[in-house]
């Protein structure tokens, strides 16, 4: 079995923790640095992401958490002048996601992303979810319908959308649009989902629905989520990473981080103190 506790940044789980299973590594950043031109936004990050668990990235604005998240599906490739150093290993095949020989489109099929604001395509609900499948070459209407239903069910939107699949996606409410984006992300059966502040544009009820959804989705996929809402990180995640000025300050089991963090910087941040 893979020993996931060998990294110095991973805290040992407390003996009293009820979850006895040993977490399995799904991805692992190794000495990862990232540059926007001359500016170094990430500094030598070593961190594991555990399979079928939710890992939250927290930290003040500009600390690099979104930058880190976007490295996982090569979003930075879209802009010139950006540069990665180090690796992100992706398991079980041990691929380096940042490798030059690795196709970013393939990476994005395996690692989907949901953004801060719902951004459905100007198409029907059905076509939004089917889009990625069509890109993949799926043509059979029946197979598409099956996959779309499965994805919408996975995103908890099927009951609300099944009678209006041909409606324009913009006719949905904000929370429904965000769930549609999650369904779109799920349609290609990704192994990992990246959430970049997925509820910051939503009201508390829609937020609650998305949080519940994240909880249910972790049975199927590995989730990495950036959030400014620390209570949300405490509620939805199994592991939490605190970042500051492009560095990973502390990583550990969420309950430990929020009750007994080991670093003073983490304590100051989560208790709302001056650094």
């Amino acid at each position, binding site marked *: 079995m893979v020993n996931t506790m060998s990294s110095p940044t991973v805290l040992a789980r407390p003996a009293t923790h009820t979850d006895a299973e040993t977490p399995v590594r799904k991805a692992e950043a190794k000495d990862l640095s990232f540059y926007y031109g001359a500016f170094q936004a990430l500094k030598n990050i070593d961190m594991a992401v555990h399979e079928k668990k939710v890992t939250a990235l927290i930290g003040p604005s500009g600390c690099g958490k979104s930058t880190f998240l976007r490295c996982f599906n090569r979003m930075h490739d879209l802009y010139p002048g950006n540069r990665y150093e180090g690796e992100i290993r992706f398991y079980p095949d041990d691929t380096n996601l940042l490798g030059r020989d690795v196709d970013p489109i393939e990476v994005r099929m395996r690692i989907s992303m949901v953004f801060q604001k719902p951004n459905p395509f100007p198409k029907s609900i059905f076509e939004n979810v089917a889009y990625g499948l069509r890109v993949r070459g799926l043509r059979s209407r029946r197979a598409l319908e099956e996959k779309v239903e499965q994805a919408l069910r996975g995103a908890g939107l099927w009951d609300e959308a099944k009678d209006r699949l041909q409606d324009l996606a913009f006719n949905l409410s904000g929370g429904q649009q965000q769930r549609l984006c999650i369904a779109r992300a799920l349609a290609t059966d990704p192994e990992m989902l990246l959430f970049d502040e997925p509820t910051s544009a939503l009201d508390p009820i829609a937020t609650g629905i998305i949080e519940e959804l994240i909880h249910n989705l972790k049975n199927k996929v590995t989730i990495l989520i950036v959030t400014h809402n620390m209570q949300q990180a405490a509620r939805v995640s199994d592991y939490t990473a605190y970042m500051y000025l492009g560095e990973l300050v502390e990583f550990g089991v969420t309950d430990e981080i*929020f*009750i*007994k963090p080991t670093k003073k910087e983490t304590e100051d941040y989560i*208790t*709302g103190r*001056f650094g």
Partner: protein
Amino acid sequence: MASEHLSKQYDNDLETLRSSVLQMGGMVESQIRSAIEAFGSGNPELINQVIATEFRVDECEVNIDNNCSHIIVKRQPAAGDLRLIMAIMKTVTDLERIGDEAEKIARMSKQIHERGKAQLNSFANIRHAAEIAVGMLRQALDAFARLDAGEAAKVIRKDLAIDNEFRSILRQLITFMMEDPRTISTALEVVWIAKAVERIGDHAKNIAEEVIYIVKGTDIRHTRFVETEQ
């Protein structure tokens, strides 16, 4: 937890809460002293005063718990702040129970002195045990005020001394009762007083354990933490 919160009001709320715990602790400490003095003298005014203080102690407990709820709902405290609030909620319960024990001592003293002068020479022993208990309480409250885990550990170690005192008083009272059965009623009341003093020591120990929880984040209740730390 030395640095300040971004919200000054949050700092003020926590500081007010900490002060009110210490104030309640001071009130309870003087209540025990008065109760023990009343046991010695039988002064009815003092006895009534101890019993009356109990209402104020109860009021403190309710107010502090209420303030804790407000902070939880408004601030969602985490880490050290969360541990402080949780520890305060438990500490005030212990302080209130110490108040109950003081009241019990006063009520027993009243009965003993109304019955007439007891032929038991137990006051000095009880006072000695009570001094240890009050000392433990004061030290636990000092440890809370300074968030000093080392001082709190010392309180926990002292609990053994008070348990020994209680057993010694009990042996002495059993001897009295065997020698002269007419002392049984009074001796039983003195046993209750000795037991109340011993319980005060237990509550002081609980408060000390809460201080260690605040400072170290380790829940040492029902463990041999202090012995192993030595």
